């Protein structure tokens, strides 16, 4: 295991991305990401799933909540007794599993994307402002972040969702509440590093307002390196949403979210394994695509940062 240590470091270090030194940070990370096979594979998979979720709204005329007792417990196509009308089989009420899974996918997409976008915007706004302005405001905002982060997300979620009936908006709000402090912390560090830079002082001298400097100058430098965190977070939000539904404190049946379907299907694991297992495959592929893209972004970011030293 140790035999590689002397050879690995002495091998020529990979050249930092050539001739991109003039480019903005975000562009350089993106250039390095775009060529990664991980990213392409992940993005392709993600695009395919997104397309399936979107198209299913228009193409499938099957109602995901329509019951059909004659066809209940139809197994999926590759097993015995299957019915081609239901490629992924049906559940205990004869509802089509494929259309249910695709609607579940839509809900997961919607909630995950909305929650990630909102927490990114709120968290980075707070972080940029706190880091840039500094002083008492920074102290105060960061203490708020500390307190928020000391409440475990799952406890926060179940406390709030235990009190009120879960709606998609409330679930999004809970996810945002649990996640924005991470972004605040990350962007604050970036903004803090930029505030003393010459270009910021120059802009000040020219009479630019704080907001203008933050939005036009600091944000484009401080935000792109966090893109990978947002992609990983999207995956985390999606799992979290499904977990809440699964535990019975998130969205409720008959809404066919992936968490609800899997929780439901668990009762029929012995006789009809596909009800719980197949929707999970969709969820897993979705998370896999995000994790692959996130990994590619993270590696590109690290390469750019290390090369820049």
């Amino acid at each position, binding site marked *: *295991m*140790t*035999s*590689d*240590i*002397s050879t*690995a*470091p*002495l091998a020529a*270090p*990979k050249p930092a991305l050539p001739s991109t030194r003039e480019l903005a940070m975000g562009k350089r990370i993106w250039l390095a990401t775009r060529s990664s096979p*991980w990213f392409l594979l992940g993005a392709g998979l993600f695009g395919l799933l997104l397309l399936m979720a979107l198209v299913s709204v228009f193409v499938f005329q099957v109602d995901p909540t329509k019951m059909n007792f004659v066809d209940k417990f139809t197994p999926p196509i590759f097993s015995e007794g299957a019915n081609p009308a239901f490629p992924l089989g049906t559940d205990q009420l004869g509802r089509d599993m494929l259309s249910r899974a695709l609607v579940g996918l839509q809900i997961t997409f919607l909630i995950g994307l909305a929650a990630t976008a909102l927490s990114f915007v709120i968290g980075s706004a707070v972080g940029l402002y706190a880091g840039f302005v500094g002083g008492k405001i920074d102290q105060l905002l960061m203490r708020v972040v*500390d*307190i928020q*982060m*000391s*409440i*475990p*997300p*799952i*406890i926060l979620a*179940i*406390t*709030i*969702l*235990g*009190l*009120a009936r879960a709606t998609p908006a409330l679930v999004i709000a809970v996810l945002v509440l649990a996640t924005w402090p991470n972004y605040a912390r990350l962007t604050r560090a970036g903004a803090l590093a930029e505030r003393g830079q010459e270009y910021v002082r120059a802009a000040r001298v020219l009479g630019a307002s704080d907001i203008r400097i933050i939005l036009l100058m600091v944000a484009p430098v401080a935000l792109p390196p966090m893109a990978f965190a947002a992609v990983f977070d999207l*995956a985390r939000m999606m*799992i979290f949403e*499904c*977990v809440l539904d*699964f*535990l*019975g*404190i998130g969205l409720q049946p008959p809404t066919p979210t992936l*968490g609800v379907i*899997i*929780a439901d*299907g*668990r009762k029929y*694991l*012995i006789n009809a*394994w596909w009800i*719980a*297992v197949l929707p*999970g495959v969709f*969820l*897993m*592929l979705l*998370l*896999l695509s*995000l*994790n*692959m893209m996130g*990994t590619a972004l993270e590696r590109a970011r*690290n390469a750019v940062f*290390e090369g820049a030293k």
Partner: protein
Amino acid sequence: MIATFSFLARRLSQGALIVFLAALIVFTLLRVGPGDPARMLAGGLSDQASVDALSEKMGLNDPFLVQFGKYVGGIVLHGDFGQSYIRSESGLSVGGGHGDDQTRSDRADVLSLLGSRLPLSLGLALAGLGLALLVSAPIGIYAGLRAGKWQESLSIMGSSLLVSMPSFWIAGLLVLLISIKLKWLPAVGYEGPRYLILPAIVLAIEMAPIFIRTWSSAISSMTRRDFVRVAPVRGLGQRQIFSRHVLRGAAVPFINTLGVMLTSLIGSLLVIEFVFDFPGLGKLTVEAVLQRDFPLVQAIAIIISAFFVLVNIAVDFVSGLFDPRLDY
């Protein structure tokens, strides 16, 4: 020594403040929500007068801050987290105290409820964490030493795949394969250490990929450092370079990840215990929320945020021991 002491004193006092505020937030959230605990306790068919009497007796009519003050006072002065709204004390040992108070004495003490569930959760957590660490360290370190080669790609691919499997789904899959089809291990409840195995495996599947990634990226970035690259020139053997420089440097990111994982462990336990019907703290928490057992929810939230704070302090402290350049 003095620096260490002042670090601990400062961080602990900050931590105490944070836990206090977290307690206030959770307490407030639970009070503003719908539902009258006195009505719930007295039972749906009780007349309004007895509900009111009970409400008065429980202090629910006091101003909000007085209620909170009494609650915090009970915790700080007597270590008393109150009594469960729902659970009776039958089958549970309760420390003496409120024998004179009929409305309280037949309800389970929150702290002893938690205490009775803690050992099982702790056992599960240690088993899962231990398994994850045992598997991830060799894989991650090896992959890190082979950075840029197929071994590293394989480990990234494998850990991406594992991290993409939601625990509640993989749990169902394992139950289907190992318990139902193969009948190797029991899946539901707890009647002995054999019942720990499947939940611990699921927990390990959730945590191992993250440790693998941390090890591999930390090790590979250490091997590129100048002080490691010139170490052979200083006459150090590979073993020494590995253990003194590479491993020691990689320990800091590892400890940070360990801290993050310890805090996220709570959420994982909650889901896994729920799936396997495992009678630990996590299942108790879900049940407490679904039954609106506020004293229990409150106590769990406060204890967990205290745990969060302590883990974070410990992480910073231990990182400082491994890398003296880090400022506490």
